[in-house]
């Protein structure tokens, strides 16, 4: 574990990058995976986010700006991938292990896991906002910044996504409320 205070600049420094990855890599992979449903590719795309960040020599003066950029970038890369690809993912044992490992790291409890698994059945836009809202616990302002939309639109999207999620959960006699976050 790197205890050095994270600085959101000089990403070409391996130590900086490792420290960032320590804190964010799996979260970003989880986010991308929630959109593309392929954890191996999600890991690859997560790295693309940082490749681009280094190439553009970006730096951020605070964590919030870094998070907004990285998640926005991850989102764009994930949707670009989704739009281009028509492949199907073979669920190998290795991939299953990776998925379980990732889930154990980012999902705190059984209910969160259930929500995560359920939302993977929803459309990518819904998965996207549900992940940011209920797995990452980002505020509506933060989500608006990441998605490049206004807060009202985030509210609407969350409302619709949660409704769909509950429709699926209700088939298993489960219900998801904000309080359960």
């Amino acid at each position, binding site marked *: 574990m790197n205890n050095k205070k994270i600085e959101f600049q000089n990403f070409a420094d391996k130590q900086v990058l490792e420290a960032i990855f320590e804190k964010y890599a799996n979260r970003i*992979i989880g986010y991308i995976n929630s959109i593309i449903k392929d*954890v191996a590719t999600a890991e690859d795309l997560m790295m693309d986010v940082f490749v681009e960040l*280094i*190439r553009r020599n970006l730096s951020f003066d605070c964590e919030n700006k870094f998070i907004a950029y990285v998640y926005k970038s991850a989102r764009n890369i994930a949707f670009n991938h989704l739009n281009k690809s028509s492949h199907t993912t073979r669920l190998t044992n290795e991939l299953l292990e990776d998925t379980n490992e990732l889930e154990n790291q980012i999902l705190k409890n059984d209910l969160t896991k259930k929500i995560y698994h359920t939302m993977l059945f929803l459309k*990518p836009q819904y998965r996207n906002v549900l992940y940011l809202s209920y797995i990452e616990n980002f505020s509506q302002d933060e989500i608006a910044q990441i998605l490049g*939309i206004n807060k009202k639109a*985030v*509210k609407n999207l969350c409302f619709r996504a949660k409704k769909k999620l509950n429709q699926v959960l209700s088939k298993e006699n489960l219900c998801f409320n904000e309080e359960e976050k």
Partner: protein
Amino acid sequence: MKTNSERANEVLKRASQPCTKTETAKNKRWITILSCCLASVIVVTSIGLGLGLGGVFNSDFISLDKMYLANFANYSAIGAGSQPGANESVVSAASGDSSGDAFLLSVDKEGKIERARYAKNPNDNGKEIPMNVSGLQHFENYTVVGFSGWSVNPNYPAFEIGPYYKKMTYVIDNHTGKLYSLQSLLPKTNYPDKEIVITISDKFESYDCFYFFTESYGISEANLTVDGLWRAYVENDQLKIEQVYDDTLGLTDGHNVTYFSDRYGNSFIIDNNISYVINRESKLNRLDDDLKLVRSLNGEVYFKNAQQKAQKFDENGNVVDTEFYSETFFYKKDLIKKDGKTNYYLKNETIYKITWEDDIKFTTEPIEIERSEEIYATTKDYIYFCANKIIYRVVITTGKIDDFRPSVPYYFTSISSDNLGNVWFTAINSDMDNVTGKIDNDGNVTTTITPNEFRVYYINPLN
């Protein structure tokens, strides 16, 4: 998964080769473009030579815009269904419960069902196309059909369809069999991940047009807005759409909003307890609060005012008194029999006999079913019910069980009909073997059957 150190190494390695990926991507793009060109040439040529549809192919799907349903003059009904696979049981095939590649079906005047074919000219024999039906909505003058390039579970009769940019929703003129692209007329979007949902239902029918509303969602711009309410009709051999309402009221901000139209082309928006009417001239009026508006089976919209007086909306969207008032409404899928001016609908285990006096006035007579079961299938004259060891049938016009008693010692597991008067069943015999069988319109039972060729999901007669 990689360790963070391995990830960091890989990122730094990739980042140190800034041009490679871009060039590769460009090369790939060129290869893709060239491949697409070559593939398009091959495909277009194939289509041109093989299907006779030349020059109508786009990068995603075949365009059916301005094409015809082949031999449409011989159609008596139009519907959707699929063809069971070789290993699929006959009854699961006929039941419509299982999913499959659904396509448009034609029913000719002898009742023969075939897969619809498409042609450039109305009298050509045409060819089938490899696109699946994802939704179908039948109106008196138009049929709206949504296609998908991949297997889907079709949803009838009302449907939602996306994505927007695929331009896969077509309007069929029920009088000519000509197809018109609907989505290509809607405003373009620059956002590849933006999708649009077109919602169409029985309650959007008017005498010379139909309505639908669109909702779009996407991440790249403000989401979940109702784009508006639209009117569609064919005029001078062109499909035309007009935006009736563009959500300038902002009603859809998380509200539970209901839309429908009446037979005269007035549109209604109900936002909780507030209702609005928009007439054909796009004049919007807010109505009194707490009105309970109902679209009746005749297409008129009624309500009772504060004094409990029955009122309706006229051709101009104005409120007028009415002598006739009915809250009765059925969806087309509930129609089980047509007999002159009398229609029979099946809903909640009750048959409803609707007798029309004229275009507007009708009477409703509920007919109790003598005995009903959850599993049933309908034919022209009967509702067949399946109750474990027996199959029995009820006469639609009376609700009474008739004397049909097939002497087949089976344990029945499912039944379904094929819209041609045949009832298909699955059963288990005394040796615990699976049996499939057919009951024809005269009540003859046979278990030596030719597999049902089509699984019919939905069929609606043309006028």
